[in-house]
């Protein structure tokens, strides 16, 4: 059929996918033209990833049809998708860390029983060269940086002759420089004939790299627009369903007194390797100090040290005038430190109620005659639910709450005590736009109140928006402390370990 030459790379028609009562994709239409970079834009839970997992054979649609280059297909598994020229790079890289780059690339794509590793290495090196991907075929994946691992993933797809590449939030883990390299690479591959689906919720990146945008909201397509004919604010409106305002940062509230002081703090990670190397930081009252860095550079360990759940191997931590070096969580809280940990599922007891979780950190205050005072726990919860606009009842099991409401519970529990110091890690990760704005607004209120806030986040936009000063961490070392109007290039260099000159 001569007209099939011009048919789109991928057409998905009326795709519907349900998970129990939840409709993740509701009759979604999606068309990817050849040699196009096409954004799938939407909030968390809008159904972007679900739609692409269907295309890649990881989920099966309840309804709808898929055409690839005009031909109707049924995709049962990734193997089918790969055979049709579709490759996918997921958010959590699908790589086996102890294996070499070559082994990861040829996995599942081998002929015969013999691997023939020397030949395979040559073929992988040749493919890497052809696609302009810099990576050593003999390196072990566990020794590679996150950006390099992503390149291995892309190489893996291209090695299987993919002409459609799905990238799921590819920039979430990259430094600004690595994002730029990724985009350059994608443009070059596009010129070589590749079509790309770019899943994202970052508007400026969508504007920067894509040709067209399909916006999803609540599992439905809200619109399809050529990128050249739209603006960030229009896309934001489509994505959220209402205009977004962002948060407005009031003028500086910083005072001279230092409420959180870290002096040469050293700590080890779970493997016993040094994770923090002589970290010294001062956070003033009424200040948000942002800690920027690529994931896995010691942020988690630093947060844990300050939360009282990881020991230091050296140095001192002074909070609100108390030495809390190697103090347990109870001492840390008693010193006036409020903690919003990175994984909210670990900072609540999932099977207990909202009211119980709200009382949990200070149970001694809810005791009458040696027994828990259930009525006070309940009244306490009702007051917080009202004050923090939490969509939940005191007796709801906390596991059943949305991410945003769960985070509000934790926020309420911590903020009601007016902590002098706040240690906040990834406070908006996985939250929708509304909840994100709410959390950021609350943090800024605390700053106005005079709290010293250490904001640890891998979301650079968040750091830039909220911080009064930004400290950059790389491999457990503070590379420098800069102002939030810093040149983004410079910030990126610090994040990739280049020292301030």
């Amino acid at each position: 059929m001569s007209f099939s030459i011009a048919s789109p790379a991928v057409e998905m028609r009326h795709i519907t996918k349900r998970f129990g009562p939840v409709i993740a994709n509701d009759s979604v239409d999606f068309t990817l033209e050849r040699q196009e970079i096409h954004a799938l834009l939407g909030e968390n839970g809008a159904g972007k990833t679900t739609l692409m997992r269907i295309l890649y054979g990881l989920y099966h649609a309840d309804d709808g049809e898929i055409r690839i280059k005009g031909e109707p297909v049924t995709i049962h598994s990734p193997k089918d998708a790969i055979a049709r020229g579709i490759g996918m790079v997921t958010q959590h890289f699908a790589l086996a860390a102890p294996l070499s780059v070559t082994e990861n690339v040829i996995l599942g794509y081998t002929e015969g029983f013999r691997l023939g590793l020397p030949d395979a290495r040559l073929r992988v090196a040749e493919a890497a060269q052809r696609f302009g991907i810099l990576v050593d075929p003999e390196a072990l994946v566990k020794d590679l940086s996150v950006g390099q691992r992503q390149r291995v993933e892309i190489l893996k797809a291209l090695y299987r002759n993919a002409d459609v590449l799905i990238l799921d939030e590819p920039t979430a883990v990259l430094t600004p420089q690595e994002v730029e390299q990724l985009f350059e690479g994608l443009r070059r591959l596009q010129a070589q004939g590749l079509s790309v689906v770019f899943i994202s919720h970052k508007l400026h990146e969508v504007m920067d790299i894509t040709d067209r945008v399909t916006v999803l909201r609540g599992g439905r397509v809200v619109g399809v627009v050529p990128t050249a004919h739209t603006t960030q604010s229009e896309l934001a409106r489509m994505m959220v369903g209402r205009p977004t305002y962002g948060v407005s940062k009031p003028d500086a509230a910083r005072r001279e007194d230092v409420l959180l002081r870290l002096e040469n703090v050293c700590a080890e990670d779970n493997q016993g390797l040094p994770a923090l190397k002589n970290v010294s930081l001062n956070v003033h009252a009424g200040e948000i100090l942002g800690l920027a860095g690529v994931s896995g550079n010691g942020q988690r360990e630093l947060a844990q040290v300050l939360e009282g759940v990881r020991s230091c191997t050296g140095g001192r931590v002074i909070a609100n005038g108390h030495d809390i070096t190697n103090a347990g969580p109870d001492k840390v809280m008693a010193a006036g430190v409020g903690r919003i940990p990175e994984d909210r599922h670990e900072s609540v007891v999932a099977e207990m109620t909202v009211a119980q979780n709200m009382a949990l950190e200070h149970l001694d205050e809810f005791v009458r005659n040696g027994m828990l005072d259930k009525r006070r726990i309940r009244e306490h919860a009702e007051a917080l639910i009202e004050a923090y606009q939490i969509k939940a009842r005191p007796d709801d099991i906390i596991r059943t709450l949305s991410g945003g409401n769960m985070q509000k519970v934790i926020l309420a529990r911590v903020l009601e005590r007016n902590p002098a110091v706040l240690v906040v890690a990834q406070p908006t990760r996985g939250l929708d736009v509304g909840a994100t704005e709410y959390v950021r607004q609350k943090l800024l209120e605390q700053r106005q109140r005079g709290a010293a806030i250490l904001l640890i986040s891998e979301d650079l936009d968040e750091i830039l928006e909220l911080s009064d000063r930004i400290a950059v961490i790389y491999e457990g070392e503070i590379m420098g402390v800069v102002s939030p109007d810093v040149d983004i290039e410079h910030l990126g260099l610090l994040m990739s370990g280049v020292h301030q000159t």
Partner: protein
Amino acid sequence: MDQAVWLTFLVGVLAATLRVATPLVWASIGEVYTERAGILNLGIEGTMFLGAFVGFAVAARASDAGFGGYLWLGLLAAMAAGVLMALLMGLLSVTLGVNQHVSGLGVTLLGIALSLFGFRLVFGESSVLPSVEPFGQFSIFGDLPIVGQVFKQYLLTYIAFLILVPVAWWVLYRSSFGLNVRAVGENPEAADAAGVDVYRTRYAALAIGGALMAVGGAFLSLAQLGAFSPGIIAGRGWVCIALVIFARWDPVRATLGALLFGAVFALQLRLQTLGFDLPFEAFLALPYLVTILALAIAGRNAPYPGAYLKPYRRE
């Protein structure tokens, strides 16, 4: 002691080392394959047990029927029994996703009970322990002094060290199947996304492992003893579990571990006869103590396969 006595002692220890290590090599390489695919098969003890019993029972009956290849038939039957036990383990841990500790211990209990029950059924309660003429020993060095005596071994010992170990290594690291096994045990999501069938690969690794474990058990009944008794395996399966961790899931290191255990075992047998004033149980415990010690030293920070103990489900 004079030189001649020392030499006899040394030759005896070395020969016994290889002999004692043989069933451990078979079974621990079987366990290496299983664990590399992400499954801790605690059914190993019961699988070895059943292998020893089925191998012996089939061989004994075939021998009674006058079939000349009765030992090989027994070995084949043992392997088949091992595969069946592995498939049961697969049903529980791969298909149903049951906790691997529990399902493995269940498989072991089943294997031991089936063997003892089967032994009653097949052989009744005779006062004479039934036996078969076992595999013989030979030396590839003929009647040469010393080496000829050290290497006077069973065919299954030769196969274990000269064929099984290198082939197991090659398949694991140089074949596409081995790559699939390692990937599936390390990151099944990645393997799945790359088009590898996680379930099939895990079942295949289990089946190979089960067959090898059963050979390890059958070696004892068909070569070393020519008989079956309830104490035949005596915790060798558990030793293999430790050896595999000690070996960091590598077939060659597992073999070295088996040799270490074999050497201590052979040594303690001879130490018992030297007349130290210690209960013999103390000597018997020695190889197990050494295993624990070796594990405690070499097994610290062992790089467990990433998907160890985790059943795989697509989200």
